[in-house]
């Protein structure tokens, strides 16, 4: 072969859940495919991907990106980033990202028209597209079927649960009642567990209680006092009734997973994520049959008549950095990595939803009963707010929940705390109602 120029494209991707490694791997495969094409057409350049897959914590990943971007050294800043769509408002307004509208347009016909349209909203900010959706998931409630059976539920009743939730026949209050039954029957240590760390999941309960947390019209965050208080009351009651451990926010993640998936010492995981399915198999070594045998799921039930059952999606996206010298190539790689087969293998491995319409017809995707089942929840999807202070909002809400669960705050006080902290963080970008 003639003298070839090798262009290295650097990509920083993040799990931190280890099964999500195809976020990086797909880029590498994309490069192989690209190189094959280049070879066939006799081009004298080759592409090499130097990919990074972060399994340390989210905050250290973000810190790394921020500090590298601020330093702006093109030798350090990667060409491609994979991160939460929530980072887009922040990073794009800092000028660290390149707008992608033109590129998306270029490959629209071949690729991007196939993406679920609502996903583009999550990667847009101030009228521009800053990212290519990489995956999306469902955040829902997991139930232990064995406990339901032990309470006398028939298989049909169990299978009907998801529908009942969807149609508001089963509300959060019913969930609490069910929890008390499990408790009374001595089936569990704690019938209700939830994620210990901060995350966007908790906004789902605000929606379940008929509230809102974001106003897309004005691009402002919303504090809905009534719904927020109802949400906090829900968590407070759970602890008061002994349904949730008061120190839930200090549990280590593995303990939560074990309790719900492995040992069944918990009855319900109300902030479940569909990708847990993959982690439970891969990291905890639980066979998929066992999971099917013992677990079922539903949307987050509505909390009140006004509220709605929902599930939350938190898309991750490929982004191209503004200092990159090879934005075209980078985007081309992203496009290739978003091919149906590649993204599907990611979906399968990491237990994520499809991002493309054609994926749902893709044979290997169809093979997965789990993905198919979970995908049924998609119509009820809500997203995290596309606002720079949205991350802060999630953190503050998590704090407030910790406050009421430990009894340090009453729900009313906790609402005040949220208002105070968010006023500080968001200033005018806040609607309180």
């Amino acid at each position, binding site marked *: 072969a003639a003298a070839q120029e090798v262009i290295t494209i650097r990509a920083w991707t993040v*799990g*931190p*859940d*280890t099964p999500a*490694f195809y976020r*990086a791997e797909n880029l590498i495969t994309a490069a192989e495919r690209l190189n094959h094409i280049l070879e066939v057409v006799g081009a004298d350049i080759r592409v090499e991907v130097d*990919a*990074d*897959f*972060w*399994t*340390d*914590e*989210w905050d*250290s990943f973000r*810190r*790394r990106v921020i*500090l*590298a971007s601020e*330093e702006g*050294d093109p030798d*350090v800043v990667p060409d491609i980033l994979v991160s939460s769509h929530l980072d887009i408002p922040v990073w794009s307004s800092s000028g660290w990202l390149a707008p992608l509208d033109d590129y998306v347009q270029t490959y629209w016909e071949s690729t991007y028209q196939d993406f679920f349209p609502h996903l583009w909203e999550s990667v847009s900010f101030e009228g521009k597209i800053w990212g290519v959706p990489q995956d999306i998931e469902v955040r829902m409630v997991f139930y232990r079927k064995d406990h339901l059976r032990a309470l006398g539920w028939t298989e049909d009743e169990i299978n009907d649960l998801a529908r009942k939730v969807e149609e508001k026949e089963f509300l959060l209050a019913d969930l609490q009642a069910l929890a008390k039954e499990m408790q009374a029957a001595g089936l569990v240590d704690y019938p209700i567990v939830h994620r210990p760390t901060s995350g966007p999941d908790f906004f789902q309960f605000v929606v379940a209680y008929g509230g809102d947390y974001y106003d897309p019209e004005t691009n402002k965050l919303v504090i809905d006092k009534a719904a927020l208080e109802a949400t906090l009351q829900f968590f407070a009651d759970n602890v008061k009734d002994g349904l949730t451990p008061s120190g839930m926010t200090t549990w*280590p*993640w*593995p303990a939560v*997973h074990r309790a719900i998936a492995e040992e069944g010492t918990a009855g319900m995981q109300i902030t479940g994520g569909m990708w847990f399915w993959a*982690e439970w198999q891969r*990291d*905890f*070594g639980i066979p998929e049959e066992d999971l099917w045998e013992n677990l079922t799921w539903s949307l987050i039930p509505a909390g009140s008549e006004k509220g709605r059952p929902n599930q939350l999606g938190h898309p991750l996206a490929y982004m191209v950095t503004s200092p990159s010298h090879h934005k075209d190539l980078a985007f081309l790689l992203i496009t290739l990595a978003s091919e149906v087969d590649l993204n599907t293998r990611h979906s399968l491995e990491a237990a994520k939803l499809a991002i493309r319409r054609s994926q749902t017809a893709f044979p290997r995707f169809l093979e997965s009963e789990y993905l198919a089942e979970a995908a049924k929840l998609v119509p009820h999807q809500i997203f995290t707010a596309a606002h720079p202070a949205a991350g802060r909002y999630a953190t503050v809400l998590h704090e407030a929940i910790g406050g009421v669960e430990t009894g340090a705050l009453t729900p009313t006080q906790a609402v005040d705390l949220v208002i105070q902290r968010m006023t500080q963080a968001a200033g005018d970008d806040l609607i309180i109602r």
Partner: protein
Amino acid sequence: MAQLKQEIAHLPRFSPERLRIEARKEQRKARLLTLFIYTFLIVASLPIILGYGWLVLNSFSETLAYGVLPKGWTIKNFRFLWELPSRYYPDLWRTTWNTLLLAVGMTIIMILVATPTAYVISRMKFPGRNMMLAMTLILHSFPGVTLLISLYYVLRSLGLLNSIVGVFLVKAGLMLPLGIWIMKGFFDNISWDVEMSGLVDGATRMQTLYKIILPQVKPGIAAMAIFSFINGWSEYIYVITFIQKKESWTLSSYVNSIIGDFQFIDYGLLSATALFYILPVLLFFIFTQKYLMTVTVGGTKG
């Protein structure tokens, strides 16, 4: 005198009977005390013994039943020694080398900086001497880690981002107060006569420092070296903050990455890596601990 004699006359006198009884009592007390002390040490050390025992068992077993009892012996947890956990990990040996570089670099800087400073504070007459020592204590009140962002700017302007050198300089800076106190303790203990002798023999003050004083504070330098080596070896936050390139990673980032967002629970691999990580410092310590046990913070005795 006579009065004194009278006074002591009525005190209990030397009596074989009393002696024998009391001796037995004392012996029992001594034995009880020894027993008590061993019990105390063992009970107090239980969390450490169990915790690290768990680590070791973990690293050699397939799984732990109930999270406690090891099942199925294996060395596969140590597979990271010859294969990468995934292709996204930097080479283990390179990482180890980086860690060594960081620890050794920091140790050397500490020795080069703390030793002369402590010498000046301990043994040279100049105005502001007390101030210097007070200042080292005050310096220690700077919460290094929360100055992270400022340090980032400093390193950036010095062009030391993304280099191990930058990290060990910062680390040495933060450990400086301790180093100065330790070394001062050792310098304080050197006889003035010996240093005076050096001067009279025709050495300059600088020559006495190199040829006479330094050879005598070797244990101090060793002790300080151990402290800084260990400190540098386990550094995490600065590495992860100031070094964005994975090629410059150190073992702590490696281990953190394996543990992940607390979601990863391959305790076997984790324990094996942790052991691999701890082992060198442990060996280092065992061979040098006699110096560590000579550390004083100086001042005149009593």
